[in-house]
């Protein structure tokens, strides 16, 4: 029972972190139907940014937020202006190749800049672990889970309660009508990229205190982010939350109780079943 409880608590925390990583992917997907295969590379780069701020300037990850987020907002905006804009009306294959190419450019730029070495932050305010219901959970992970919930909340408020948020939704629903209503669709899309990329940068910052960075670290998260989005429901922001949580719990509970060797098998087995029997995802509505 104690083992189950520990696995469940771990699963919730892990799931929220996965959800935060998937958030930006899901958001961009939802707004303009573009699958960003380079998503996890932005995660990797933001982890490097957080690491270097800490290593060179002793800036704690929490204080890195106001520096890294605007930087990655601009990064996302520019990615849209310089690359994505040109492939928006191209075939799905062209879109896949373009973002796949972006993945390699970003990954090998990191290789060139930082080498294959592994870096990690090891002295910061969030050391140690706290006890919940007799189980242990690292403070840094708990904070990351909290950040994830907050990020979902803020994005939800932005979309529902602000004018740009509503305009963004309109642009996502129908480009032509939105244009006719005077909504600057181009700018809305660039905004969506800025938000999507800065949210994955936030995930990178939240991961940094307990996860190390190397140029290929995106591999550990890209598939999981995709699975979260698909499991929760394509292109729905709350879908990423539900999907991420589901994967974290599945992985942690089945992995701990049955066999961790097969934890990804459990996750992707259910993923395949989902695609077969409920392709619209847990929260999606059949089209």
């Amino acid at each position, binding site marked *: 029972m104690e*083992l189950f409880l520990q696995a469940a608590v771990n699963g919730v925390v892990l799931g929220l972190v996965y959800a935060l990583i998937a958030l930006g992917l899901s958001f961009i997907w939802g707004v303009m139907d573009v699958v960003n295969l380079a998503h996890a590379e932005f995660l990797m780069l933001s982890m490097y940014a957080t690491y270097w701020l800490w290593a060179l300037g002793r800036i704690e990850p929490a204080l890195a937020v106001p520096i890294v987020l605007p930087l990655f907002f601009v990064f996302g905006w520019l990615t849209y202006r310089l690359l994505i804009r040109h492939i928006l009306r191209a075939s799905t294959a062209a879109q896949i190749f373009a973002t796949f190419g972006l993945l390699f450019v970003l990954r090998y730029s990191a290789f060139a800049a930082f080498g294959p070495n*592994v*870096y*990690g932050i090891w002295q910061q305010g969030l050391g140690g672990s706290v006890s919940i219901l007799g189980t242990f959970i690292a403070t840094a992970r708990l904070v990351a889970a909290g950040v994830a919930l907050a990020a979902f909340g803020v994005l939800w408020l932005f979309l529902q309660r602000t004018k740009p948020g509503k305009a963004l939704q309109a642009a996502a629903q129908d480009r032509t009508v939105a244009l006719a209503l005077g909504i600057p669709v181009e700018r809305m899309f660039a905004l969506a990229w800025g938000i999507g990329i800065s949210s994955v940068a936030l995930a990178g910052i939240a991961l940094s205190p307990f996860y*190390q960075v190397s140029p290929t670290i995106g591999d550990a998260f890209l598939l999981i982010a995709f699975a979260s989005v698909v499991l929760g429901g394509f292109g729905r922001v709350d879908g990423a939350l539900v999907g991420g949580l589901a994967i974290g719990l599945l*992985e942690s509970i089945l992995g701990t109780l049955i066999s*961790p*060797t097969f934890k990804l098998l459990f996750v992707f087995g259910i993923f395949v079943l989902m695609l077969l029997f409920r392709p619209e995802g847990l929260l999606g509505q059949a089209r």
Partner: protein
Amino acid sequence: MSRITRRRFLRYSGAGLASLALTDQLAAALAAQEGQVTVGAVYPLTGGLARIGVAIRQGIELAAEIVNSNMSDLTLPLAAGTGLPRLGSRPIRLVWADTRGDPATGRAEAERLIDRERVVALIGAYQSAVTATASLAAEAKGIPFLNPESSSPRLTDRGFKWFFRTGPHDITFTKLFFDMMEELKQRRGARISRIALLSEDTEFGATAAGVAKGYAEIHKYTIAANEYYTSPPSSLTAELLRIRAANPDAIIGANYLVDAVMIVRTLKEMRWFPQGFMVHAGFTTVPDFLSTVGRDGFYFLPRAPWALGMGKGKPLVSRVNELYKKKHGSDMDEVNARAFTGMLTLADAINRAGSTAPAAIAGALRETNIPGSQLIMPWQGIEFDNKGQNRHAAGVLTQILDNDYKVVWPFDVAESQLVWPVPPWDRR
């Protein structure tokens, strides 16, 4: 401008090549006349591995120098007296060939050394893949091939008659962990019976785990848990939770650097640590590992083929290293220490053969019996089994103590006291 016609170019280059070939032959003939014994060395001297290849070259040259000159104050084979005494004190001459780290080049170069340089034996070639092809050339032509430093277990499983390996392979490293635990039980009364394995799931980790299971069976340990994961992992909590629940006395890990960092952090979060945690690699990547995890990385037990710190328990190591350092300005490392030992082993066999006939040298190699006291390695000696593998090849266990990798086992060459059981997190 250019006056060189095609015909003239061909004539000159033809003549040049012919004279080059002649000088080669001449040098080989001269060497034989002067009574030098020619040994071929095949290593990556240029390309990505050049730094290692050059260090190996310096180690092998030091070994040849010790044989050729009189250094009776060292207790190494053939250090006393000059040259090879049973061959009328003839000196050893080394001919070098560059593999560029490429298996095909390695084989071609080995063939060239055998055919053109008339080498009596070959030594090489660092990378397992190149050793595999270069030794193929030696096997085909009936020339002894001595390999000091490749670690693929398969090399000595090919049924070759002319292939010998002085150094350890990947399986022998696992044996170290069990030998150490056995000795801990006997000497210190440690209670170790349950082992957990935590491995990444490709060739490296799967082989290591398979071998560990075999040794556990021989020594009657229970495998309390055996977990694999895909590297890089997004999380190792499920794996380590299961391992903790199985309550093992010790863990053996085969992990990469990224995984190693995650293991340390997850264990700390769980506020749990077994009596001892022995590891193959990952934890030894200097300086990345410690600069990433800091003090939390202490007490792990990485294996190593050789460590300079052995010199505290074995003065011969420091003596040889001083000689090396005087020449090259840097310390010996685990690779060229193995190469150095390989070269001495080969010289010892040629001497005992009393002849430069390849068959006699191979026969002498098979009868090699160098005691551990005459080696700079942490081995009980050098004796080849019928596959050509040195049955005493082993390594040392280091422990990460005070930000350094200290040799802690075998106990007679240890520089620091082995900490076992490891103190819990809150008492570090």
